[in-house]
């Protein structure tokens, strides 16, 4: 088990300097989510217009994995159509489950691939994505 596989530089950078942190004045949807088993929490706000994520902000409290995942996610979905954001979410989850996927569309998020080797941290990495899926009405966990 190599710690450097998990804590890549880009992760620590997003943890230290989270992007899209804050509140949206005219958000169309807000989701508050917490991981009851560990106390991590996130508030995700989206401005969705014409099926496109025009803007996004988040606030939260959690570990480097959950917060960097949220920060990178906001960068990845901003300006994207909702269905593309959802596709990204499915790709991301598949990567975290350790499946062999094309990580190209994930960009920086590929850095979180190491989480698949740390089963205890999977929920940290997917918290923001679960919030996203709930925000656009397609919660993979809820429908299971």
């Amino acid at each position, binding site marked *: *088990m190599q*710690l450097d596989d*998990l*804590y890549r*530089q880009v992760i*620590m950078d997003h*943890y*230290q300097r989270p992007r899209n942190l804050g509140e949206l004045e005219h958000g169309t949807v807000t989701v508050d989510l917490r991981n009851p*088993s*560990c*106390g*991590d*929490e996130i508030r995700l706000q989206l401005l969705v217009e014409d099926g496109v994520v025009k803007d996004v902000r988040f606030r939260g*409290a*959690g*570990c*480097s*994995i959950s917060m960097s995942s949220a920060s990178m996610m906001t960068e990845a979905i901003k300006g994207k159509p909702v269905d593309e954001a959802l596709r990204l979410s499915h790709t991301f989850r598949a990567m975290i489950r350790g499946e062999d996927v094309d990580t190209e569309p994930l960009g920086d998020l590929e850095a979180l691939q190491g989480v698949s080797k*740390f089963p*205890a*941290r999977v929920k*940290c990495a997917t918290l923001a994505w679960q919030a996203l899926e709930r925000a656009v009405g397609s919660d993979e966990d809820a429908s299971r």
Partner: protein
Amino acid sequence: MNAEEIRKDFPILQQEINGHPLVYLDSAATSQKPRPVIETLRRYYESDNANVHRGVHTLGSRATEAYELAREKVARFIHAPSPEQIVFTRGTTESLNMVAYGYARLKLKEGDEIVLTPAEHHSNLIPWQQVARFTGAKLKYIPLQPDGTIRLEDARSVIGPNTRLVAMAHVSNVLGTIHPVREIAALAHANGAVMVVDGAQSVPHMPVDVQELDCDFLAFSGHKMCGPTGIGVLYGKRALLEEMEPTYFGGEMIDVVELYEATWKEPPWKFEGGTPIIAGAIGLGAAVDYLTQIGMDEIRAHDRRLAAYALEKLSSIPEIEVYGPRQGTDRGGLVTFNLQGVHPHDVSTVLDAEGIAIRAGHHCAQPLMRWLGVTATARASFYLYNTEADIDRLASALQTAKEFFQHAIG
């Protein structure tokens, strides 16, 4: 007591995790099991397994005898006046819920008060919230001092003539605070209230004498005291157990069953509906034998020594904030802390890479986390098989974690 020798009784500790000898510092969550307990379970299943209190065959008699002998052992262990005051349950949570549902919900009414502390584990908080919801009783809290302790003068001003029930952990699972439950029980009784003690973190770690504490109910779990998971205990004063209603119904717990009504057995059997946790109880009996043979005074002294040593070691790292009673104040065998700028999950992952198991999170005490002003903490907890060397490994791994994240953050 020689912890190095005791370690040899615990097969699980003889392994490497991520290339390092395992250092297990999460006994407050669950303790490891010594060979005599594992052997007792194996022997029971291999030679005595049968259902209890029914049938007349030899195995049935052996299983029943062993099950009831375990009850006697547990009664002696906490100095209960009789084995009939020991109810076998699934654990502390179930024990406390039985008091809440079978006693408090039926006895309390609007205007009554339930007194707690903000440091309670969710299992000693939510059942009382439910009682309040269903009866109209009110919850009141004895405030915490900055170091997490409670003052008797505060308890005196909160516990009053309307107080019907006081529920409190003997030892806090987060702060390690030892609450003055004997004094609080006296206060409760002076006001006509019953005293419920959550002994999950005390019974495994120190001599607990229910007659000396004069508590009305005591709840604890087997798995935190070298026993199997799935077995716990509710001790109650005889008159209260007689008044208390069963919380589930069915086989084993009945006296006479008619088509439209039924009567129950005497306590404790009326609370043990269905096939009880036979192997679990017998395993707990073996755990009690094991702990008794080492001596609870010895174990308490060992825990105290380790907690003081850990407090000293961790306090010497400037980036570490330790919560709970300061050095020199008596505390249970655990230390809760945070490493500045590093989330406890991340701390825990780095420690795990070095073979060290600690707990990270809210420890089932969200109100207490809010009181501390944090969302999560890290906790190292100790037991009879831990040594000073384990704490040295912890301190050195925390240095590594600190440097790793300082470097990673750049």
